[in-house]
């Protein structure tokens, strides 16, 4: 399965919008002098499609009751989320420059209490799915129509709590729940297969009672098609295995752990990353 998707993810050429969002990520990275670039660059297209075309949401009313809930369970991908939220007008783009400053609203992991548009504070892995299941049940109890989307990392699937949540989502037949796996094949210490393999990942989710779809996580059209499919309140929860490239768009950051998280980032490194993105 995955070889084909991985090749495709590598081959995708980023359009102007995807590059713009990555430039915004670099802007924050430069401001903070640190950050998780690799895990953010892999999920830009997923977030872009969610916020551009899929989610019911209103930047002028972040807690609109009928909004779809989105939880970035892999909170370390927050630079991507900050870029997309800023681009949609949830907060001024100038906030990006203050990333990780003492009194910034943008921390190294996203916080509901400080930033409009953050549904739930995350950072410790393996929390978002269970919280999202609670929200999905709340939607059902209130007889409302909003849906719940939870984005997890592939490394995050090492957490046992994810699989506890998966069993319960299936037991409750949470058709309104979508789990998206940012499958960039790298975790902090290396290739996931050298740490703890997840294979056969599609079969695993299938065995846990999910409707499984595998896609190229950088293909905007494919993301729109799959994430845009209608869902029912009751039914199999679905998981979208979105194969991506860690550090996508920045040659020196692609498929490496070097840029998983980096501190003391220099101006030259930022310039180099920008050059790589724009060529």
């Amino acid at each position, binding site marked *: 399965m995955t070889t084909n998707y991985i090749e495709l993810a590598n081959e995708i050429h980023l359009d102007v919008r995807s590059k713009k969002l990555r430039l915004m990520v670099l802007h924050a990275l430069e401001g903070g002098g640190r950050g998780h670039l690799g895990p953010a660059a892999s999920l830009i297209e997923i977030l872009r499609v969610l916020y551009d075309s899929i989610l019911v949401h209103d930047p002028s009313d972040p807690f609109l009751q009928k909004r779809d809930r989105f939880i970035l369970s892999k909170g370390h991908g927050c630079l991507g989320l900050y870029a997309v939220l800023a681009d949609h007008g949830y907060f001024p783009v100038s906030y990006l420059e203050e990333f990780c400053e003492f009194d910034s609203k943008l921390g190294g992991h996203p916080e509901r209490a400080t930033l409009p548009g953050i549904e739930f504070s995350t950072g410790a892995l393996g929390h978002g799915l269970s*919280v999202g299941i609670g929200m999905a*049940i709340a939607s059902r109890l209130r007889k409302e129509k909003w849906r719940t989307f939870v984005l997890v990392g592939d490394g995050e699937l090492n957490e046992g709590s994810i699989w506890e949540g998966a069993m319960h989502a299936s037991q409750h037949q949470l058709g309104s729940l979508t789990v998206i796996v940012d499958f960039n094949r790298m975790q902090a210490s290396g290739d996931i297969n050298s740490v703890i393999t997840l294979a056969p990942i599609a079969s695993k989710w299938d065995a846990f009672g999910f409707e499984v779809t595998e896609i190229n996580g950088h293909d905007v059209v494919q993301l729109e098609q799959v994430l845009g499919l209608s869902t029912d309140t009751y039914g199999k929860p679905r998981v979208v295995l979105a194969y991506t490239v860690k550090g996508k768009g920045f040659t020196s950051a692609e498929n490496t752990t070097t840029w998983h998280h980096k501190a003391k980032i220099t101006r030259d490194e930022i310039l180099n990353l920008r050059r790589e993105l724009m060529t």
Partner: protein
Amino acid sequence: MRQKALSTVYKLAKSNPKVLFIGSDLGAGTLSSMREDIPDQFFMEGVSEQHIVGFAAGLAQEGFIPYVNTIGTFLTRRSFEQVSIDIGLHRLPVRLLASGGGMVYAPLGPTHTAIEDLSLMLSIPNMKVFAPADAFEMENLLTHLVNDEDPHYVRFGKGGETIVTENYPTFDLKPKFFGDKSSEVVIFTTGVLLQHCLEAQKLLSSNEISATVVHFPYLNELSVEQIDSNLTSAHLLICVEEHVPRGGLYTQILHEFVSARMPTKNLYQISLPNAFSHNYGSQADHLDLNGLNSVKMALKIETLLVNHS
């Protein structure tokens, strides 16, 4: 006490659709009436404590008031990060109803005895920690605080405890006083040990030693300003708790007394040891072993008084 707590949750849920019950593979008959009557408000999930705490947080974030019940050690030790982050950080009104506080599950061994639960829960910002003394106080607590916006941890006793709090028909966060305020001895306690302390008070009284018992059902802030100079001028202050020596009531008392510049020179403690027990038996066996039943408590107090005189 557990039975009363669960029936109170059912009663609250009947009149408030926001109130939910979440269990984790509890006994088959648990709240079967509620399950049949209002099934949408009843959840019996799997053996997945990390999940049920996060699940409850998600529901609370959407406006519900989930009451989560399972064995206390699983809620505190197993789910600590979920309790701290999902509930504490987000300041969500999730109620953790902890079965088997202290040595209730002594026969089941150290994996099941909640000897450091108060310490763990008190360390989490926003978490309110309660140890009611009997079923009457339990019902009052749950009923009066149903709309409180903070997360709660509520420690259960074994059940069948004598009702001793009927003079406090409403629940507030203040300490509860039992006895004359100008006594020679002041006994500080929390939870079901109140019954044992009141028995000790009687034993001491028969030996012409006056003792006041102060029960703290709410452990975060002890309102020590209410403990007037008569109390603090007693010959002996003693803290009695079914908990490891540090991090529980004694630590809270020390913290507040020292902050208020109140004297601690005559303050002593009787508690569980700082150890996992490898004995089984009953809760009563462990209270006896550690000097926490009324007879041992009274003897200790008499000895301390002699040494002080």
